[in-house]
C-alpha cells in the first residue's frame, strides 16, 4: 500500500521551476531515499509533501489524504525533521523534548516515559540539563531528531538528518531508524551522503534540476546503471612502457598513476582483466596487489547527474 502518491507535481518561483512535473509513489513500511545534488529540488519536494508550501500544479496524497485540500489532516499524521536546525535556545534538552510532546498533545505520563527512553537512545542523558543554546551542532541535531519521536506518526520526513553528526552517532541514528521501520513506520529520507542511502533505503529516487531521473531499489539501480566496473592493479616496480603495452586493449578506459598503479574502467571488466594479466605475464611484470572496486551508489549517482546535465 502506498502512503505517498505524487502526480505531476510542480513548484515554480517566477520563471524558476524548483520541482518540475514529478511523479512518485512511496510504499508504506519502507525507507524511501530521495537523493540529489545541492539545489536539485529535494527540500522543496519535502516542503510540498509536508504541506509547508502549496504546489503550483499537480496533485499529492499523503497517507490517503489530499495534502492540498486538507493539509492539517496530513500534518497530524506525519513527523518532520527539517534540514535547518530548529530549537528553542533557552530550553534544556529534557524540557525541549517534554514541551514538544506537549505541543503534540501527548499525555504527560507517556511524555515522561518516552523522554527517558529517547534521552538514552540518542545519548542525551549527560546533557539533559543543558540549554539548547549551549549545545554543539551535533548534539543539537540529535535533540532535533529525538524530539520528533516524542509523538506518534505514520510517516516521518527526514531532511538530511545526519548533518553535523560524527560517524558513530550517524550509524547509531541509521540503526535506530531501521528498527523504527520494522515497527511499521515509513520514512522519507533525503540525503546527499550516498553510503547512508545505500545502507538504509529500500527504494531510491534521484532528483536533478527539479526532475526525477531514476526510481528503483539500490540494487536495481546498480544493475541498471552500474555495469561499468573498476579494477585497480598495483605493480611491484615502476614500468615506464606500461602505457604502450596495454594500449591495444579495447572496450575499456585505462588510467596510469605514478607508473605503478593501473586503473581500468570497463563494462567487460573480466575479459579486459584477462588480457591485462596476460600482457603483464608475457612481459614478466609482477603484481603487488589487485582489487576490484564494486560499483556503489555514488558512482551511479554521479554518472546519472552528469548524463542529465549533458542531456540538458
Amino acid at each position, binding site marked *: 500500500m502506498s502512503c505517498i502518491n505524487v502526480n505531476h507535481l510542480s513548484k515554480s518561483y517566477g520563471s524558476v521551476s524548483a520541482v518540475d512535473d514529478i511523479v512518485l509513489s512511496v510504499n508504506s513500511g519502507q525507507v524511501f531515499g530521495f537523493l540529489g545534488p545541492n539545489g536539485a529540488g529535494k527540500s522543496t519536494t519535502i516542503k510540498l509533501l509536508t504541506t*509547508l508550501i502549496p504546489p503550483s500544479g499537480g496533485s499529492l496524497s499523503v497517507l490517503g489524504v489530499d495534502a492540498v485540500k486538507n493539509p492539517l489532516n496530513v500534518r497530524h499524521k506525519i513527523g518532520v525533521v*527539517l534540514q*535547518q*536546525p*530548529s530549537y528553542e535556545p533557552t*530550553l534544556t534538552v529534557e524540557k525541549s523534548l517534554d*514541551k514538544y510532546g506537549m505541543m503534540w498533545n501527548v499525555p504527560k505520563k507517556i511524555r515522561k516515559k518516552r523522554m527517558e527512553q529517547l534521552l538514552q537512545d540518542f545519548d542525551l542523558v549527560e546533557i539533559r540539563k543543558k540549554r539548547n543554546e549551549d549545545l554543539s551542532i551535533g548534539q543539537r541535531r540529535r535533540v532535533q531528531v529525538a524530539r520528533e519521536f516524542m509523538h506518534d506518526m505514520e510517516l516521518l520526513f527526514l531532511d538530511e538528518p545526519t548533518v553535523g553528526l560524527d560517524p558513530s552517532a550517524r550509524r547509531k541514528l541509521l540503526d535506530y531508524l531501521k528498527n523504527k521501520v520494522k515497527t511499521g513506520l515509513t520514512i522519507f529520507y533525503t540525503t546527499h551522503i550516498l553510503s547512508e542511502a545505500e545502507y538504509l533505503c529500500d527504494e531510491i529516487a534521484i532528483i536533478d534540476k527539479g526532475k526525477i531521473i531514476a526510481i528503483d531499489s539500490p540494487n536495481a539501480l546498480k544493475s541498471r546503471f552500474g555495469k561499468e566496473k573498476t579494477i585497480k592493479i598495483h605493480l611491484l616496480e615502476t614500468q615506464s612502457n606500461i602505457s604502450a603495452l596495454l594500449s591495444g586493449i579495447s572496450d575499456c578506459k585505462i588510467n596510469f598513476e605514478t607508473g605503478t598503479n593501473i586503473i581500468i574502467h570497463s563494462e567487460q571488466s573480466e575479459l579486459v582483466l584477462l588480457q591485462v594479466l596476460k600482457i603483464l605475464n608475457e612481459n614478466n611484470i609482477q603484481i603487488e596487489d589487485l582489487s576490484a572496486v564494486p560499483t556503489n551508489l555514488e558512482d551511479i549517482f554521479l554518472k546519472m547527474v552528469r548524463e542529465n546535465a549533458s542531456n540538458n
Partner: protein
Amino acid sequence: MHPIIRLVNRNLTISLNPGFLIWQVIFPLIYIFVAGYAYAPLINDVPFGGKDLDYPAFLASGMIGFNIMNSTLISGILIWNDRRHGMFEQIMSGPFTRSHYILSNICTIGIIGLVSASLIAVVGYPVFFESVEFSFITIPIIIFGAITGSILFGSLASIISTRIHSSEGFNVIINTVFLFFAFVSTAFYPADGAPEPLRTAFYLNPLTYLVDVIRAGIFGTITEFVIIEMIILVGIASVLFVIASKLLTKLDF
C-alpha cells in the same frame, strides 16, 4: 487540549525566564519609587479627570501602561526567535495552522500584559491607594485597557519582527520605536502644560490612550474623552492586528 492552548503553554515557557520577570518588576519599581519621589518636589499635583493626583500616584498608574507595552515586546521577540531558530517552520509542519500560531501569540501577550499590569498595580498600590476609586465599571476598563494595549503593541512588535531580517536591525528598530512611545506619551508627565507640538505628538501615540484609559480605570474618572480614547485604542489595535496577521500569513519558508 486545544492547539492554541498548547502553543500558549509553549510560548509562556520559553518567554518567561527569571531575567525577564525581574526586569519587568525592578525597572518600574525604580521609576515609581526613585523617579516618582525624586521629582515630586518639582512637580506639584497633577490634574487628571477632575482630580488632583500627587506625582508618584500619577507616575505609578502610568507605569502600568508602560509595562504592558514593554511586556508585549515578547511577541516580537517570540516571532523573531521562532523564525531565526527554525521553530516557525517546525511548528507549521506540525498539527497547527497559521491562525493557531497568530492567536496563540495574541493570547500569550494578553496574559503577559494582564499579569504585568497586575504586578505593577500591586507594587504601586501603596503609592496611589489614597486616590483609587475602583468600581464594577472601572475594573473591567483596566482589564480592557490591558488586553487592548497588549494586542496593539504586540501586533506592532510582530509587524516589525516579520519585516526586519537582521537581529541588529530588529533590536535597533524595536527599541527606538518603543523608546519614542514611552517618552512621547503621558506615561511620565501630563499633556496639559506641555508645548503645543509636543502635546499633539502625545496624542499621536497609542501609549497615551492606553495610559489614560488605565488611569481612568484606577482613579474612577471615566469621562467622554476617555471613552473616545478607548474607541481609538480599539481601532488602532484592530488595524495593527489585521496587518500583523496578514504579514504572518504571508511569511514564507
